[in-house]
């Protein structure tokens, strides 16, 4: 399973990620992304990769989810 990791230091609230991947990412009232804690469904992995690639701040990485977490 993949998980989305956002580097909060790098993130500058562009909000593209929530536009591209509303299924997993919403924005708080200041425009910063909130990732839901759920495992990323397989069919969303490609979109998540695109969100990571398109982030102007390169704040998103995809990680293999560690077992049991």
């Amino acid at each position, binding site marked *: 399973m993949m998980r989305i990791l956002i*580097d*909060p*230091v790098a993130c*500058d609230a562009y909000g593209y990620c929530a536009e591209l991947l509303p299924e997993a990412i919403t924005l*708080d009232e200041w425009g910063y992304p909130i990732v839901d804690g759920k495992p990323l469904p397989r069919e969303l992995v490609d979109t998540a990769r695109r969100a990571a690639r398109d982030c102007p701040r390169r704040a998103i990485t995809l990680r293999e989810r560690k077992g049991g977490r």
Partner: protein
Amino acid sequence: MHSVSEASAQTTGRYRLLGHPTDLAGHVATLGPAPLPSGNARGWHEAFVSVLEASGLAGRGGAGFPSAIKLAVAHAAGKGGTIVVNAMEGEPASDKDKLLLIRSPHLVLDGAQLLAAATSARRVMVCVPEGREQVAAAVSLAMAERAAAGCAPVEEVLVRPPDRFVAGEESALARWIESGQSLPSFRPDKGTPLRIGRKGALVHNAETLAHVAMIARTGPDAFRAHGLVEDPGTSLVTISGAVEHPGVVEIDRGTPLIDIANRATPTGVPQALLVGGYGGSWVDPVHFTTPYASLSLRAIGATAGVGIVIVLGPDACGLMESARIAHYMAGQSAGQCGPCVYGLPAIADDMTRLARGHVDAGLMARLERRLREVHGRGACRHPDGAVNLVRSALSVFAADVATHAHGTPCGWGSRTSQLRFPPAWRAA
């Protein structure tokens, strides 16, 4: 800086951190020299690690991580690293590390030298914030004594990072040493060793190192003669608030919270205790007998944090005091992460409105949502501490929340705070 006082340094039994001679000659005469390796270094390393493991020592800087595991990680990071002595003590209500370095600097430095030997580190760096000249002078004097007596196998250096709340966060400290920027790093894998340049850095709270130095001398059993089986040893705790004798005490782990508070003689019947500092939690009177130990505190939603117990007297508004803390914590953000930069001031403003009884219809729901959303979204745990503090306030002072939310504040809020804040900081 407020004066550092020692309410009482006595614990039962012979294991204790405070109360030993301050000077090197007296220190060595009383406790013996630090048991550093001579000759068979491999045998020494194994023996040292097994003693530390058997002691069950956990870090005293807030996270409570087992010291033996931290040592193993640092050892794996390779030779030539730095032992960083974290005496940043950013919590405004904590004095224990200041007192320890003023009274027993050699114990802390011995602990650092032992860990340097165990990890083949090449230097010891003691971090004392700018402005704390009394502590810095004590450390400098101790270092000079040790250099002259040949008691410092690796170089010991005193450095002076800025005096800010997050400056003592371990990744911020490592980064400041490397680049002069006192900023926490985003580290999703906290188990990986910290680095300064290409070399490893082992960051330990000053009190933890004093325990290492004592345990290496006394063996694990003397340490385990205090405290609980699952949470052994003693701890330094700073007591303040509505008490007659604020100061630092050395207590056995597992001591009931109210017994700790009573060591400083509360001026009235406490309405709550703040345990763990401004990133800690309020504790309700029904939990006053909770043992001061990691698991017991976790069970009531609190943490030992750094050793802090603050007594809130009957003539104070817990909500206003919490609003002040929230504003202080908001002002201490490193300014790197949006949820902390924007979330903490918003939460603090909500708390001030609540405490003043200036409550709009959406306030409580908005505050709850902000607390939920801000938690866990910073590079470091600074926002989490502030959120936990406010959450505990809403729970412990629930009856006050109800009256304040109806626009009828208690009236105590306009009183001078019972809490300690740095002189330069002004409450909203």
